[in-house]
């Protein structure tokens, strides 16, 4: 066996000697990725978590009742009716994201505003400041339901005839030019006639409505498959733990130095490249194995798809090389194993955060999103996503693989340059 092979075999022997450590190395990323996957895996066959909303109806009008009914029927919302005090206390305690307060007189004011007679109605939202995303979602849904309810109430509601009569009278007293006033009056009278006719014949009340339905099609290269959040979470956590393995590689090198082993290795007729390359190879093998076992688990247990096996293997191995070369660089600039572990852990956590492994990067500010392209974790996670649940072709793995290998080459060169070779 060559010296390089012997050095690689030694590292693998040491790794597999501690069976408890091996099991933990494999089990911890699987456990954490499974947890995150369960959070972000989408609805699937399970019931989706709903946003808790309270409706405080102080109006009791036809319009307010329509609005409460429409929000209660929304599958994204868990609606309860409460008093104002209860609702405010629940939002304050974090049990509710939003409370919608419909004040007295809201129905009449809103319909009048809809037909151009008077100011807009006020609708108050009591919101939990820590749940901005949920509040934004409720605001959007509420706008849609409100437009539908106002339109229905204005054309077919119980207060419709009365409010249209008021509107016609106000036209007579208004300042609108006579020809325009006559046209608008005709519109209002037509609506009244339509409503009366429908009430007389018992035909279903039809009027202006929201004119579209949304139909969602999930776009991925894998036909007839739903988004599988486990594939993404295993990618993110897999890369995070690959980098942790890189830190352990660095700590191992520094420990060898502390124990005087590096002196024995350096006294042999071996090149510096051979010594570092051996660690890079063994680190790559161990990290690749960890990634593959994790994804095999995700595939077997959570049905996480591997869209393109060749591309997946290419990205996984390139990610493992990146993590190992990162470990070499850490060893080159580190001093003691303990201090190096702490400093490198901070760097890895920042890289993982910026890479979108924890929080989707679209939540970041624009400047930070641009910065993520400098972080290899982003390429690794994007590459694994592309080759797993997105089901993209092998060609889409080439850029991530190229960038990961480029980063690896840079780390390796810096490690070779900065490594403390003198062993006095």
């Amino acid at each position, binding site marked *: 066996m060559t*010296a390089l092979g012997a050095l690689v075999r030694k590292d693998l022997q040491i790794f597999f000697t*501690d069976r408890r450590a091996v099991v933990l190395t494999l089990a911890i990323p699987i456990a954490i990725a499974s947890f995150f996957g369960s959070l972000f895996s989408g609805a699937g066959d399970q019931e989706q978590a709903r946003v808790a909303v309270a409706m405080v109806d102080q109006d009791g009008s036809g319009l307010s009742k329509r609005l409460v009914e429409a929000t209660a029927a929304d599958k994204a919302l868990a609606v309860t009716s409460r008093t104002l005090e209860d609702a405010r206390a629940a939002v304050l305690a974090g049990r509710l994201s939003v409370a919608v307060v419909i004040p007295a007189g809201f129905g009449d004011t809103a319909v009048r505003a809809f037909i151009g007679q008077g100011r807009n109605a006020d609708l108050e939202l009591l919101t939990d400041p820590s749940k901005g995303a949920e509040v934004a979602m409720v605001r959007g849904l509420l706008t849609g339901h409100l437009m539908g309810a106002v339109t229905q109430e204005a054309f077919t509601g119980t207060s419709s005839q009365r409010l249209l009569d008021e509107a016609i009278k106000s036209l007579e007293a208004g300042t609108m030019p006579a020809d325009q006033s006559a046209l608008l009056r005709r519109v209002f009278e037509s609506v009244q006639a339509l409503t009366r006719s429908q009430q007389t014949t018992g035909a279903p009340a039809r009027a202006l409505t929201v004119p579209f339905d949304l139909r969602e099609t999930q776009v991925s290269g894998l036909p007839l498959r739903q988004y599988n959040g486990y594939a993404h979470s295993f990618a993110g956590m897999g890369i995070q733990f690959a980098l942790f393995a890189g830190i352990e590689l660095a700590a191992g090198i520094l420990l060898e130095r502390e124990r005087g082993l590096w002196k*024995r290795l350096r*006294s042999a*007729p071996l090149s*510096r490249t051979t010594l570092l390359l051996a660690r890079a190879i063994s680190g790559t093998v161990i990290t690749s194995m960890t990634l593959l076992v994790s994804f095999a688990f995700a595939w077997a247990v959570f049905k996480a798809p591997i869209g393109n096996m060749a591309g997946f293997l290419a990205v996984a191995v390139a990610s493992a090389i990146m993590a190992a070369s990162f470990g070499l660089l850490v060893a080159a600039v580190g001093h003691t194993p303990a201090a190096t572990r702490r400093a490198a852990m901070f760097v890895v956590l920042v890289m993982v955060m910026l890479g979108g492994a924890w929080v989707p990067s679209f939540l970041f500010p624009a400047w930070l999103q641009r910065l993520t392209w400098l972080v290899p974790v982003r390429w690794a996670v994007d590459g694994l996503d592309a080759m797993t649940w997105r089901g993209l072709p092998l060609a889409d793995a080439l850029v991530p693989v190229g960038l990961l290998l480029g980063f690896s080459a840079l780390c390796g060169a810096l490690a070779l340059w900065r490594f403390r070779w003198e*062993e*006095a």
Partner: protein
Amino acid sequence: MLDVRDLRKSYGRVAAVDGASFSVEPGQLVGLLGPNGAGKSTTVAMIAGLVTPDGGTVAIGGKPLSGDTDPQKRLIGLVPQDLALYEELPAAANLRLFGSLYGLTGRALEDAIGSALLLVGLAERAGDRVKTFSGGMKRRLNLAAGLLHDPQILLLDEPTVGVDPQSRNAIFENLEFLKARGKALLYTTHYMEEAERMADRIVVMDHGRVLADDTLAGLRERAGRDAGPGASLESLFLAMTGRSLRD
């Protein structure tokens, strides 16, 4: 066999080794003595190729040593002061690795492992992990790892630190055996009695310089002249290097 000429190494403004010269012939054990910080370890590190000298030469069999991959390094065996062993691995696995680094393979490697373990009395513990060994056993295995590839020159950096008298005696016997086989041994130690017992010649260093390079008899004669009749090697050593404490 080993010829060190005008070797120099500085760290910043501090000259760790300042023009050291000496040689070690086949079948000879040279004791390298000196207080802490004298430059012994740096000298050994330069001979082993662990540190690049600022000046001077290290020649093996007349050929200067140069570069990490110089094949001449195969002629050198290093026994570092630290127990440079992988404690998680069995003794044989350690030796298999270290032998492979010097190009040993197959039957030759296994034979060398067997011989080395037999020499240091650990043949029956070949399959046991090093972490189960006593301090003395680890020291003997440390020695075995250094001579596995049958080097012509053995650099021993305080190889008996922290071992019991039995293991130390066993190591001395090993070294006598190697000397008898014509190996050139350079032995650094703080123990004067070890140097008196083992060394054919003694090199005394301090502040990076060689203060004395002579046989034990020559040094005793010098000690008698300087410190009076019957003066010991230790009294001569203290006379040359002073009595102030070194850290």
